[in-house]
């Protein structure tokens, strides 16, 4: 990045254009954007960008696309606040501000040779999709690959067609559960943590990647520890208020670490003590 020498202000966004926009669930849209001034510098699965809706504000959004296509910056956004709502209303050709990519992503190098257990809740699947693209593209490098995905209702299953096509592959186990459903749903009902004891993986050689609401991650971590995974094999992606994304604004502190700079992905043992404390 040009700003490592300090001559460029890390707070100033580049311009990017919406290339594609698709609805991915109630209030959820996936935006593909292209930077105007430069080719994509690439990103690591688990990293995020700061996206500006000009005149409204800026929010951190994880990259949800294929890391093998660095020019296509894909973000899956739920319209929950003024900025995310404004972003999801932008159409093809419209301009957004772009800073990033930022942060430390998933431990891709460490995954080689291991069983990989991915536990995602709700929109937490978005920052894990780049991992799935990578794992499936280099499938032979990994042991078992298991995706356990929980969401509120069948209508809210993210990337549904893609999940269905991945499910047809024999080299990945995918289980989806919903909190509540009508009679036309034939899958699991219940929280995602209930899938963990039933999943097939070798706890001695598994790395688990967890992303979802914080309460879901707490229960998932407990279930994974019960299943025999050591804390050093558990990784989670933390969400915090962020204004700068470069460790200068102070907002995203979790005890001794900054989620933007030291995370958002952390090995669980690094956060174990602070996450044991409420409202840290």
């Amino acid at each position, binding site marked *: 990045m040009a700003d490592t020498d*300090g001559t460029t*202000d890390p707070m100033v966004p*580049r311009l990017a254009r919406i290339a594609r926009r698709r609805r991915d669930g109630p209030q959820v849209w996936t935006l593909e954007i292209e930077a105007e001034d430069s080719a994509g510098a690439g990103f690591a699965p688990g990293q995020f960008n700061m996206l500006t809706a000009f005149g409204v*504000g800026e929010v951190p959004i994880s990259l949800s696309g294929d890391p093998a296509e660095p020019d296509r910056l894909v973000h899956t956004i739920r319209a*929950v606040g003024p900025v995310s709502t404004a972003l999801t209303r932008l159409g093809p050709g419209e301009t957004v501000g772009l800073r990033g990519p930022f942060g430390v992503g998933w431990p891709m190098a460490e995954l080689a040779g291991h069983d990989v257990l991915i536990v995602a809740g709700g929109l937490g699947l978005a920052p894990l999709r780049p991992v799935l693209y990578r794992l499936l593209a280099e499938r032979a490098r990994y042991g078992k690959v298991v995706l356990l995905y929980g969401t509120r209702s069948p209508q809210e299953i993210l990337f549904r067609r893609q999940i269905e096509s991945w499910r047809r592959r024999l080299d990945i186990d995918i289980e989806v559960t919903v909190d509540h459903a009508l009679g036309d749903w034939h899958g699991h009902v219940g929280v995602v943590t209930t899938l963990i004891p039933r999943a097939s993986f070798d706890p001695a050689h598994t790395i688990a990647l967890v992303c979802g609401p914080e309460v879901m991650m707490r229960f998932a971590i407990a279930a994974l520890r019960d299943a025999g995974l050591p804390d050093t094999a558990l990784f989670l992606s933390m969400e915090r*208020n962020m204004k700068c994304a470069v460790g200068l*604004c102070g907002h995203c502190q979790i005890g001794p670490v900054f989620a933007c700079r030291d995370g958002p992905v952390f090995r669980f043992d690094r956060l174990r003590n602070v996450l044991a404390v409420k409202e840290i």
Partner: protein
Amino acid sequence: METSGTVVITLEGLESLIGLLKRRGYRVIGPTVRDQAIIYDEIAALAELPRGWTDEQQGGLYRLVPRDDDAVFGYAVGPHSWKKFLHPPTELLWTAERTEKGLRVTPAPLPDERFAFIGVRGCDLHAIAIQDRVLTHGGKIDPHYRARREALFIVAVNCAVAGATCFCVSMQTGPKATGAYDLALTELGREEDHRFVVEAGSEAGRVVLAELPHRAATEKDIAEAEAVVSATAANMGRSMRSDDLHELLLRNLNHPRWDEVAARCLTCGNCTMVCPTCFCTTVEDATDLAGHRISRSQRWDSCFTMDFSFIHGGSVRASPRSRYRQWMTHKLATWQDQFGTMGCVGCGRCITWCPVGIDITEEVAAIRDSEQH
């Protein structure tokens, strides 16, 4: 003429220093009396300094009191710190304009103002060094801060008065100014033979000093100056054991004392505003009505607000207990993990300017004395 070693200047010398720095293009900032407090603002002459005034401070109390001598620096510290100039309360980051050709973003120009600070105390000198680490020594830097910081000329003052809420000795930041200053003054005499012992701490300081009317310091001058600092060190209003704070606080994150202090804390954020090291900021976007002209500004933020930790669904730190704990444990413990320094310099401002008089030294002592193993 090059000056080496310690020298003595008079009040007229101090007046010359202000004029000389102005002629060299500096915006000279110094202590001055306004709104019944000693604050920092642009000054043009010696007469604007708080000569003959001191401050009386306690938890939640600050009063200006006339002195019975003519001391220029005969007070402790007021509500302002130097961060208001180096890391200002609001800072424009960029503007954007929407035209038929599209949107154009223009970064805010880097500041070209050169500040000269007069009267920087040891605690505040350390506070500046701490903000240097936070804002310019990480992976990414704040270029606005750096531009102002690199142009800065610092005239430090060794403290002759210890405020009742001061504890710089505990934090090893004062009362003698240590660290990166250009000149350091110790005020002597105050009534008869009113003079300042001056040490240069940089080449820029030596060059400026050489242009001021001065004489070499005698052994008596130097001994008197040392006695001033020793007397101040012996009169600290507060103290706080600081060697074990990291472990002490991090093993007491669920101590009942946090509930007790939260019952008094108004979560007003005054402590974060007056703190010379608190650096947190948020950003604010503004547009004209048509949305054609857009700007983003950075402004001071406080971890005492609900907004600070807000993510969809609510604030991470919703209770006053958790917000006070965040502020204090950050300042005294996790700051060390993040930046390799303490986040507190012992200036006592957070105690004085807390409307209910919450005292960080008392809170630490309470936790230490009632630790539950």
